[in-house]
């Protein structure tokens, strides 16, 4: 059943409200701008599709257009942060942090200045734009960098909260956002703290711990409901912060269940699944099934078609749970 402490939306399984996670960024960054005048927003010719245009409208004097130049955007922002500003840089995740990775490494992370990289259009759910615009490697790229906080919000409300939290963190950060409208699962009351994973579903004596990040958390919840009906008890945890990972809660849930399924719209290498596998190999070796993209590029299609094609739908999560249960007893 749904964990009441997560204070999820009442209509979560009955026509939930829909919004993209990037819309949450658009709202959150305006709120952050009101709270702290050091907040500035930069974009590389993508003001509207990154939702940075809301900030542009609210604070034109603190909005900086750099043109189609993601390397320049990262380094200009590094200079601004070095001076004392709190820059959010916005583009598609394939370009930022895809194209400007070294600039982020040297001038933001090694320099240790508080720039927040906001990568939009993450995952295959970008849809018709095709593989070039579907970032599936960004978590791995950012997770490997010292000093970097990595957050993948599950819905627009969490995107808003993550934006506000990173504006306060005063450290280098990365947030990934999706293009497609997805269910709003959390509410203003749902707890959010950087580095603290939230258990959103817990049946009695779960036999599998599901860890999900991003909007696929919703698919994980639908899978949990289906599994409960056939007598397989699971927990579902929203791992919005991939770095620093909530080692304690993940360790305890994995140990309790004895089997794990990870769910993410990302390559299975180096993302959430990789992070959890690294942790559990160290503290509590546990069978794991990875739901995500298995070493392939995306393609054009509708988000729904692509999520199904690449094996990240509800049925795939259900199958992964059954498989990991069978591995446990084998």
């Amino acid at each position, binding site marked *: 059943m749904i964990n009441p402490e997560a204070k999820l939306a009442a209509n979560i399984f009955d026509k939930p409200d829909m919004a993209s996670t990037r819309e949450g960024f658009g709202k959150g960054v305006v709120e952050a701008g009101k709270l702290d005048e050091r907040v500035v927003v930069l974009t590389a010719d993508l003001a509207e599709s990154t939702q940075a245009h809301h900030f542009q409208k609210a604070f034109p004097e603190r909005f900086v257009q750099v043109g189609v130049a993601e*390397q320049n955007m990262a*380094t200009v922002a590094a*200079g*601004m942060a070095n001076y004392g500003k709190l820059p959010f840089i916005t583009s598609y995740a394939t370009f930022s942090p895809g194209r400007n990775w070294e600039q982020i490494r*040297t*001038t933001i992370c090694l*320099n*240790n200045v508080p720039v927040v990289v906001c990568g939009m259009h993450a995952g295959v759910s970008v849809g018709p734009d095709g593989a070039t615009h579907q970032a599936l490697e960004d978590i791995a790229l950012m997770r490997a960098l010292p000093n970097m906080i990595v957050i993948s919000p599950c819905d627009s409300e969490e995107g808003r909260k993550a934006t506000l939290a990173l504006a306060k963190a005063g450290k280098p950060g990365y947030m990934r956002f999706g293009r497609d409208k997805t269910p709003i699962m959390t509410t203003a009351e749902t707890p959010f703290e950087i580095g603290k994973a939230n258990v959103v579903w817990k049946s009695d004596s779960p036999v599998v711990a599901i860890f999900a990040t991003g909007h696929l958390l919703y698919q994980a919840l639908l899978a949990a409901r289906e599994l409960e009906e056939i007598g397989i008890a699971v927990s579902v945890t929203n791992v919005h912060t991939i770095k620093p990972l909530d080692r304690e809660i993940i360790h305890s849930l994995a140990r309790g269940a004895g089997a794990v399924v990870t769910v993410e719209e990302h390559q299975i290498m180096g993302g959430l699944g990789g992070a959890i596998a690294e942790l559990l190999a160290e503290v509590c070796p546990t069978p794991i099934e990875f739901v995500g993209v298995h070493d392939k590029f995306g393609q054009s299609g509708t988000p729904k078609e692509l999520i199904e094609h690449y094996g990240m739908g509800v049925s795939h999560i259900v199958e992964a749970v059954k498989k990991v249960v069978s591995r446990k007893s084998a």
Partner: protein
Amino acid sequence: MEALTDQEIKKLEQRANAIRVTIIEMLVAAGSGHLSGPLGMADIFTALYFRVMKHDPKNTEWPLRDRLMLSNGHIVPVRYAAMAHAGYFPIEECMTLRKFGSRLQGHPERDMLPGMETTSGPLGSGLSQSAGYAYAARMDGKTFRVFCAMSDGEQEEGNTWEAAMFAGKYRLTNLTAIMDRNNIQIDGNTEDVMPLEPMADKYRAFNWHVIEVDGHNIPQFVAACDEAKAIKEKPTLILAHTIPGKGVPTIENDYRWHGNPPGKGPTDKIPADKQKEVFLAELRTVQKNVAVGHP
């Protein structure tokens, strides 16, 4: 700023040569590192730290200080030496360059050394950091100046031109870039590796004010910095023509010395200590000639 007197010029030139001595000694102590670039930029760094910049070695976080961003981090020995001579830390500490536990990393790191304004090494990202810094400072009405020292080789990086475009568009008059136009890079002469000319015209086309100077003529460089301060419409590029390895004729203008310390260049059969003495003797001869007014 008032013009330099002959005596002031002479003092600065002597300081530049003392900094060159430190550079050679620290590179020998390190056993690796870049020699040509630091020697070639010794006059300019001397002028910056001993004449041009507002700064306080005892108060590195002074909010009104001028900022010097070093884009081509590999020439950092000249900055370490100039900072030590200016009083940021003891000159002996220069001999820890590139060693385990040292604040003087092989390429500069902001978090390690007070007064080091930014981390650099990977080329092509200093101009845009400087532009971002200058932009942010102007937002808050700050009046200090931002200097960016960069190399000619890194003009081959696309990021540099993205920054040039940005600074031109936003008319960052508080930004002065200083290019070490020494015509060499690791693999050869710049015009063979990737032709860069016409450099001045390129920056002018990007809406910059360009001043060409002899990078070893300190009064000329100081005057260019004053001129840059007076320009109210554009960022300024001081295109400084320099001689890589300046002061040590054996290695001057030879790209093979770009990335090597004494004892490890194209003449690597000579032991480092012996070669150091040769180089220091050459420097002393040059210094004597400066003192008696030879060209």
